[in-house]
């Protein structure tokens, strides 16, 4: 039975629809306490002391702790150490001597009821000497503001490149420069974070519910911070209400619930509220990218210089400086660019720390690169599609070695024909007709534009991945994986791969995921890696399982392996059907037989690189300058789609998030570092009225040679080029009289751009 490539219904849905699913908020344990976190109200201050006062004796309160009480806990570590010098910038579990952003944990209250914990929190006073906050990259600091910043708030510098950039610039016919800016944004999954730690007897360890994303890495880090044996730390993942890169990193609150549960010998629960979420969860983007291109008069890029500045916020969290590294590595995108030089600097400021958010570093890089291509087209009066054509890497050059590394791994585009995909997209979505009808509407006085952007994604193959298949007591085959479900439908996709390998129907399988005591290893779920990495491991495990299943049945039934065939939910031996549950009972009853378990590892040195084309059609309202995306088209080369509908769902959801990033989402701060966006009313995300007409074309022309099934990831291709495509469409709507190079393109931003044009573009718009 060929299960790969079928758009079967999701196995997750019945559970979710019947609301029988347990999100961490609805879990409760006997004798459970609730944690409330008291947070810094200041962007920057020297912490004198935290006065607990009456809070300790308030109703329901069991304990109150401040940073001083947990001084022995080390700061939260990185998953990769790019440079030991950066370790000084890790975030402490609670503030010790300095408060560095509004929302930094300063004290915790443990009480019998969440309301009582919060009540008591109000009685705690933070005594601090307020200091001027550092809010911009490149701010000169003095010893008084920040000892660790030594004169400047730049804490890291990344350089990447290849080829003779100097020579190319010296010989260049055109030199074109642009500056792009991406505002600070974050993922805002609909469920906030939550964690419950349930201590084991004698404080030997704990179970942590609410885990996601990278449970194995977090288990190790929690064990290190809390000085426990790694076997004592068990992470348990239930259902999670969206991840997008931000959920599941190890945050101070995860350590604090565990610490409190161990200290008090009682389960401790913490549920984040939404305004806390905006202060505490990783922020992202917040980059300025200057590009400088040496270009021939035919529009061919001979060399590119990139200067990237990242506002990292107050600390380096689990991702250290990874996002800036990725921006440098992926900026050249699908283009040849024979010489390239990128410098990224990472700056600490008194804002919430940043981490990864869906297509980290790539949403930013694609935006800048694609804006550059459009700038070249404009300067040389060429068609933007033609400029892309002339610069794309050709199929003959695949696999294409970029000659640089991304977070320590060589960037090699594994397979594809970028030109072919561009042409396919142009035909499938009829770009000439889209342009013609936009022009016609412009003639009628409407403000309509079409934008196109291309991108290359990467599917992280970090670490290796282990998967196990086990015949369970009820006759189901359990697929055990350490990767994580964040709503993307991974249970379905992984079950399809196992069903495909064994020829059994999907309902024979049960996914066991995110339980660190059930599987030894996992890289986790990020960078679109789950289906590719866990899927490949499952594919391998199912082959082993099949062999063992046949051997075991043969041994138990006294037959030779040749006479055994697999059938619907078991096997068939000389006309006799043996169900899987029956087989399991026979194994249990037999003194000689061992349980049916197949474990396999998969590792791949190379990354799989999906890629594609986005086309946006926008309309600008002449009265309020709001931008509406009318149509959004994506062509995406996925290698091989396990479940095409689920891939499309990923692309569509990602694109909608990207449209939010292009047009509305921005985290802002007052001049004294107070966050101004702490609710969905301030941080505006797309609603149903913002939904364009979507069309998605999945291409499976170039299976990836990096894994046995030819898979490439699906999670980030929808968002990657959305900022670039929407900005290009807005530019086109104004017949290239303005060049939007800052995201989001809010009405205010557009107003400012239009007021700067000398032909007074705003007034004719207004008159209509």
């Amino acid at each position, binding site marked *: 039975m060929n299960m790969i490539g079928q758009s079967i219904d999701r196995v997750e849905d019945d559970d979710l629809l019947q609301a029988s699913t347990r999100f961490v908020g609805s879990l409760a344990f006997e004798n459970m306490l609730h944690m409330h976190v008291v947070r810094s109200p200041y962007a920057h201050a020297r912490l004198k002391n935290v006065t607990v006062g009456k809070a300790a004796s308030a109703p329901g309160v069991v304990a109150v702790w401040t940073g001083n009480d947990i001084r022995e806990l080390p700061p939260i570590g990185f998953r990769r150490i790019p440079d030991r010098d950066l370790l000084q910038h890790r975030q402490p579990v609670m503030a010790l001597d300095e408060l560095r952003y509004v929302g930094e944990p300063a004290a915790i209250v443990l009480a019998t009821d969440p309301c009582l914990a919060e009540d008591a929190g109000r009685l705690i006073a933070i005594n601090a000497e307020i200091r001027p906050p550092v809010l911009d990259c490149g701010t000169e600091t003095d010893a008084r503001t920040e000892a660790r910043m030594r004169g400047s708030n730049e804490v890291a510098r990344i350089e990447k490149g290849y080829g003779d950039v100097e020579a190319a610039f010296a010989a260049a016919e055109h030199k074109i420069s642009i500056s792009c800016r991406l505002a600070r944004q974050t993922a805002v999954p609909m469920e906030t974070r939550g964690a419950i730690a349930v201590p084991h007897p004698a404080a030997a360890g704990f179970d942590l519910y609410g885990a996601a994303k990278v449970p194995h890495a977090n288990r190790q880090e929690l064990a290190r911070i809390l000085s426990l044996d790694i076997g004592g730390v068990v992470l348990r993942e239930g259902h999670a209400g969206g991840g997008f890169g931000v959920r599941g990193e190890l945050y101070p609150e995860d350590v604090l619930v565990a610490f409190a549960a161990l200290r008090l010998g009682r389960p401790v629960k913490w549920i984040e509220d*939404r305004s806390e979420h905006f202060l505490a969860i990783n922020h992202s983007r917040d980059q300025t990218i200057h590009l400088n291109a040496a270009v021939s008069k035919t529009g061919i890029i001979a060399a590119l210089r990139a200067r990237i500045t990242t506002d990292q916020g107050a600390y380096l969290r689990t991702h250290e400086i990874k996002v800036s590294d990725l921006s440098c590595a992926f900026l050249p995108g699908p283009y040849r660019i024979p010489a390239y030089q990128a410098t990224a600097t990472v700056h600490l400021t008194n804002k919430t720390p940043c981490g990864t958010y869906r297509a980290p570093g790539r949403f930013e890089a694609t935006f800048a690169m694609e804006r550059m291509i459009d700038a070249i087209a404009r300067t040389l009066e060429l068609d933007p599609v033609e400029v892309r054509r002339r610069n794309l890497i050709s199929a003959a050059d695949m696999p294409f070695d970029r000659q640089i590394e991304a977070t320590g791994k060589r960037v090699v585009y594994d397979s594809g024909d970028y030109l072919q995909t561009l042409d396919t997209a142009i035909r499938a979505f009829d770009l000439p007709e889209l342009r013609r009808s936009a022009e016609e509407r412009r003639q009628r006085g409407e403000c309509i534009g079409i934008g196109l952007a291309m991108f290359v994604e990467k599917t992280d193959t970090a670490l290796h991945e282990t998967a196990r298949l086990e015949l369970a007591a009820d006759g189901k085959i359990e697929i055990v994986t350490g990767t994580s479900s964040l709503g993307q439908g991974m249970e379905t996709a992984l079950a399809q791969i196992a069903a495909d390998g064994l020829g059994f129907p999907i309902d024979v399988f049960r996914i066991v995921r995110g339980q660190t005591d059930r599987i030894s290893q996992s890289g986790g779920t990020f960078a679109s890696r789950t289906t590719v990495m866990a899927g490949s491991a499952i594919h391998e495990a199912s082959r082993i399982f099949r062999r063992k299943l046949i051997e075991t049945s043969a041994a138990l039934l006294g037959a030779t392996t040749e006479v055994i065939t697999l059938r619907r939910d078991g096997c068939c031996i000389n006309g006799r059907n043996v169900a899987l549950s029956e087989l399991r009972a026979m194994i249990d009853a037999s003194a000689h037989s061992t349980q049916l378990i197949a474990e396999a590892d998969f590792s791949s040195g190379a990354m799989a690189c999906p890629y594609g084309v986005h086309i946006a059609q926008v309309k600008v309202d002449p009265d309020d300058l709001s931008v509406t995306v009318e149509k959004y088209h994506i062509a995406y080369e996925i290698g091989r789609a396990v479940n095409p509908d689920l891939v499309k769902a990923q692309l569509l959801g990602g694109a909608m998030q990207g449209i939010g990033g292009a047009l509305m989402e921005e985290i802002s701060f007052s001049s004294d570092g107070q966050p101004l966006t702490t609710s969905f009313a301030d941080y505006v995300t797309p609603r149903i009225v913002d939904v364009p007409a979507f069309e998605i074309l999945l291409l499976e022309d170039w299976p990836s040679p990096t894994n046995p099934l030819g898979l490439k990831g699906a999670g980030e291709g929808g968002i990657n080029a959305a900022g670039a495509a929407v900005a290009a469409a807005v530019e086109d709507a104004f017949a290239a009289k303005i060049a939007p190079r800052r995201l989001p393109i809010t009405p205010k931003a557009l107003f400012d751009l239009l007021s700067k044009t000398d032909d007074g573009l705003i007034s004719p718009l207004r008159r209509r």
Partner: protein
Amino acid sequence: MEDTELHTISFTLNGVTQRLRVAARRSLTDVLGQECGMKSAHMGCGQGDCGSCTVSVDGVPIRGCLLFAVQADGADIRTAEALANPDSLAAIRNAFKKHRAIQCGYCTPGFMVLADYILRNELSLDQAIQTLSANLCRCTGYSPIVSAVADLLAARAERGSGP
């Protein structure tokens, strides 16, 4: 401000009468989730912005996080566990599933309550879209949710015009 005084309230929850003693400051979402065991009681913001907490109170979708439980005294409350009736529940579940209107599922109960209201009140597709705009979803890109509801409305129109 502490508030420990308990108030006795009762309401009908999915057809079953509930009597509870609750503090005045607790929201309906909190009480449905923590006291009544409704796993569909999802708090997405607690600020009235997202609609994850939407339940039907006396036939109208409301934000459970903005209503104190004591204000629901005497009300008829229906949640995504039951909706208006078993037929409607089954139809809505099937349509959501068929159209991939669920990813993480956190916003789903709220959208199901809105879909149920749309069907009960025989709204047009345009009105339906306006109604659905009340709630946020961060995963699906919404268009699958709109397709699911459009499908339900079309099926209803077909039934209505039949013999």
